[in-house]
C-alpha cells in the first residue's frame, strides 16, 4: 500500500490525525468539532485557495473518502457530518475563487449547436509555446517522467470524477455521457480502460502505478485541478459545471496528446508508454464531438437553467489546465523541478 500522506499545514494535520483512526460510532464522543474551526482559520489565513497546499490537500483527502481511491481512508468516515461541513466550507471558498477567475465571455443561446460552437471556439488551439509543445520538442527524460507523476493524480482514476454526473442526468445528455464514459472505461475490456492504459505508461517509465503514490510530491495546483473535478462531480448543484468541464477536457485533448506522444517517442520510450497518448488522439477526437453537441449542447437546450454553469465548468477547467501547464513549463524553463521540494529521490531513478 502506498504511504499515507504528509500533512501540509494545521488543517490537513488535524484531518490526517483523525483519518488515521477508524470513525467512532455515532453515539460515541466524536472529537471532530475542531476541524471546522481549523478550516475557518486556514481560510482566513490564505490569500489563494487554489494554490494553498494545506487547503487543497485537505479537500483532496475529503474527496478521497468518497472515491475510495486511497485505501487507508476508512469508508466509515465518508458521511461524517463534521467532515461534510468542513468540505462544504472549503468548497464555498474554492468555488468562489474559480467563479471570479472563470467568466464566460459572450455566452451563446441555450441551443445545442450554438453551445457546441461556443465550446469549440473557447477551446480552439492557440499558437505559441505551451506544455505540449515543450514536451514534444525539449523535455528531458526526467521532465517527461515528472509530467507522468503530475498527471497520475487524475489519470490513474481517469473519467471517475465526471461519472458522478451519470445518475443526475436524464435522456439524451445521459446517453451521451454514457457513450463517452463507456469508451473511457474500455468498452467492456478492462485492459483498454484509460486508467489501466496509463498504469502501463507509469510502469513503462519505471514509476509507481498505485493510486496516490505521488500525492506528497505534487504541488497544490495539481491537487486543485483534481479537486475542481471532484467538487463539480460530487455536488448535484454543479451538474452543469461537470458537463462543461468534461466537454472542455475532451476538446483540448487530441492535439496535445499527439505532441505528448511525439515527445515520449523522441525520448526513446516504448509503445507501452506512448500507447496512452496515441489512444487519446483517436478517442478524444470522437469524444469531443459527442461532448460538445450530444452532452453539453443537448443539456443546455433541454435545461436552459444549466447553461451558465456549463460554460463556467468549461472555462474553469481551461483556466485550471492553463495554471497547471504554466507551473510545469516555468519550472522546467528555469531548470527546476515542478514537484515539491520534499520529493523523494526515487523519482529520479
Amino acid at each position, binding site marked *: 500500500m502506498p504511504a499515507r500522506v504528509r500533512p501540509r499545514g494545521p488543517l490537513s494535520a488535524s484531518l490526517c490525525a483523525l483519518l488515521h483512526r477508524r470513525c467512532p460510532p455515532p453515539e460515541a464522543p466524536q472529537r471532530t468539532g475542531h476541524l471546522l474551526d481549523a478550516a475557518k482559520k486556514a481560510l482566513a489565513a490564505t490569500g489563494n485557495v487554489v494554490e494553498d497546499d494545506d487547503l487543497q490537500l485537505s479537500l483532496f483527502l475529503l474527496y478521497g473518502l468518497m472515491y475510495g481511491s486511497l485505501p487507508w481512508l476508512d469508508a466509515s468516515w465518508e458521511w461524517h457530518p463534521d467532515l461534510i461541513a468542513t468540505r462544504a466550507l472549503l468548497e464555498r471558498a474554492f468555488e468562489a475563487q474559480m467563479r471570479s477567475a472563470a467568466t464566460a465571455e459572450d455566452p451563446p443561446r441555450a441551443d445545442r*449547436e*450554438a453551445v*457546441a*460552437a461556443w465550446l*469549440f471556439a473557447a477551446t*480552439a*488551439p492557440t499558437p505559441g509555446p505551451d506544455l505540449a509543445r515543450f514536451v514534444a520538442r525539449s523535455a528531458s527524460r526526467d521532465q517527461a517522467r515528472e509530467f507522468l507523476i503530475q498527471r497520475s493524480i487524475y489519470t490513474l482514476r481517469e473519467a471517475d470524477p465526471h461519472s458522478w454526473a451519470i445518475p443526475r442526468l436524464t435522456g439524451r445528455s445521459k446517453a451521451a455521457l454514457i*457513450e463517452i464514459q*463507456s*469508451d473511457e472505461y474500455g*468498452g467492456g475490456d478492462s485492459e483498454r480502460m484509460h486508467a489501466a492504459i496509463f498504469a502501463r505508461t507509469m510502469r513503462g517509465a519505471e514509476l509507481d502505478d498505485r493510486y496516490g503514490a505521488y500525492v506528497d510530491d505534487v504541488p497544490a495546483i495539481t491537487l486543485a485541478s483534481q479537486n475542481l473535478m471532484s467538487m463539480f462531480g460530487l455536488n448535484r448543484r454543479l451538474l452543469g459545471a461537470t458537463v462543461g468541464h468534461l466537454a472542455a477536457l475532451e476538446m483540448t485533448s*487530441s*492535439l496535445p496528446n*499527439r505532441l505528448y506522444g511525439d515527445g515520449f517517442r523522441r525520448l526513446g520510450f516504448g509503445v507501452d508508454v506512448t500507447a496512452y497518448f496515441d489512444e487519446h*488522439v*483517436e*478517442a*478524444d*477526437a*470522437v469524444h*469531443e*464531438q*459527442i461532448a460538445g*453537441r450530444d452532452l453539453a449542447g443537448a443539456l443546455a437546450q433541454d435545461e436552459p437553467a444549466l447553461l451558465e454553469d456549463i460554460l463556467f465548468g468549461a472555462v474553469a477547467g481551461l483556466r485550471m489546465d492553463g495554471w497547471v501547464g504554466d507551473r510545469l513549463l516555468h519550472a522546467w524553463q528555469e531548470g527546476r523541478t515542478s514537484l515539491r521540494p520534499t520529493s523523494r529521490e526515487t523519482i529520479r531513478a
Partner: protein
Amino acid sequence: MRDDDLVTVTACPDGPLIIRGPASFIAEDGTPIDQPRRSVALCRCGASAIKPWCDGTHKRTGFTTGGREPR
C-alpha cells in the same frame, strides 16, 4: 427504435463523420482496419495523421463544412 444492424453516419459541423454500428473498414490495399471502439470518427478534412480516423487537426487548419446558417 434504431435497427441494431443499421450503421449511422453523423456529420459533425466543421468536423469528422461519426460512425456508429457494425461497420467494417477496409484499407486501400484491401486489408481490414481494426475498429478500436464502438463509435469512431472518420477524417473529413484530409489533414489527419491517423487516417481514416480523425485526430482533431481540422481545428488547426480552419476546415469548414459550410451549409449552415450564420450565427
